[in-house]
């Protein structure tokens, strides 16, 4: 049986033949892709800048830990600061790297011709990694803060600072002075 040359092309719902391999996005589509790329790159820059600032803070804390101790700061606080900030610095640097990479790939979709699909898939891959990092960090922060809240509610630690000499003795001295 011969094919009918006048037969409408078969397509599922879209009204067109399906193609794989190469594809060139239209101008309107490029506009949307470019905008998303710009925002992704900018968000990556924010994350990267936060990571770099955190790194500087860590470096200062590490290099001047002796000076901080001499100035009266408990060395444990410096250690706590470094341990607490280090993961967030690493995560911000990594997240920024992926978001900026996704932004660059999306920009490449707009600027180049012939490899649009490859660039698009590369950008989606990087965005997927960035989303994964965001999710893990968000979950850790959420679980961490929840656990901290529960711990504070259960153990009710005493944060009041007792000064030296501010006990009953000093109160008695004050009463005597007042009587005189």
């Amino acid at each position, binding site marked *: 049986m011969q094919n009918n*040359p006048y037969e409408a092309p078969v397509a599922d*719902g879209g*009204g067109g033949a*399906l193609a794989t391999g190469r594809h060139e996005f239209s101008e309107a589509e490029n506009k*949307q892709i470019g905008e998303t790329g710009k*925002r992704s790159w900018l*968000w990556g820059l924010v994350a990267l800048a936060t990571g770099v600032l955190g790194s500087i803070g860590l470096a200062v804390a590490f290099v001047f830990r002796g000076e901080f101790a001499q100035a009266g700061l408990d060395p444990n606080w410096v250690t706590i600061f470094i341990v607490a900030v280090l993961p967030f610095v690493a995560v911000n640097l990594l997240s920024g790297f992926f978001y900026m990479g996704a932004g660059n790939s999306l920009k490449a979709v707009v600027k180049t011709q012939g490899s649009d699909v490859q660039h698009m898939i590369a950008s989606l891959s990087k965005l*997927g990694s960035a989303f994964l990092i965001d*999710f893990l960090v*968000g979950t850790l922060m959420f679980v961490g803060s929840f656990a901290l809240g529960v711990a504070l509610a259960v153990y009710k630690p005493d944060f009041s600072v007792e000064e030296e000499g501010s006990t009953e003795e000093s109160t008695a001295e004050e009463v005597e002075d007042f009587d005189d």
Partner: protein
Amino acid sequence: MTNQPGGYPPQYPGYPPPPHQQGYPSYPPPGYEGYPPQQAAPQWPVQYEFSEQENKTIERCAAWAKALAVLNYVMAGLQVINLNIVGIIINVGIGIAFWRASKSLADVVETQGNDVQHLMSSLKSISAALMIRLVLVAVGLGLVLLVGLIVAVVFLAI
């Protein structure tokens, strides 16, 4: 046995002669130039369909976008306890954007014929989520600068 003119089968004994030998007009009629020339099938816009390997990458991105959306919804739900209206609006906004992005990306994988439209829709939603975040950062930076400026002015004045 060979066919007769006009493509008719050979004349077998006992059967009537072919129509053109009986006085009927022959077929095709004289002057008929045959079928019209074949025209090319109409050109429809070609829709791109992502390959299986590409769909895997898109599926992964969709899954993590959905996870982020759920996380934002949970955070918004917890902020209801604190009655933090701004926090609720922000988290719900980002959550909806990521949820839509995830749905569109899943549609790219699951459906056929509209992959590019679904992809564009997902990029629009991702762009919206990123925009909310960027605006928040800008507002936060602005507030920090404002507070810093106020503190500096107050201390300098004293």
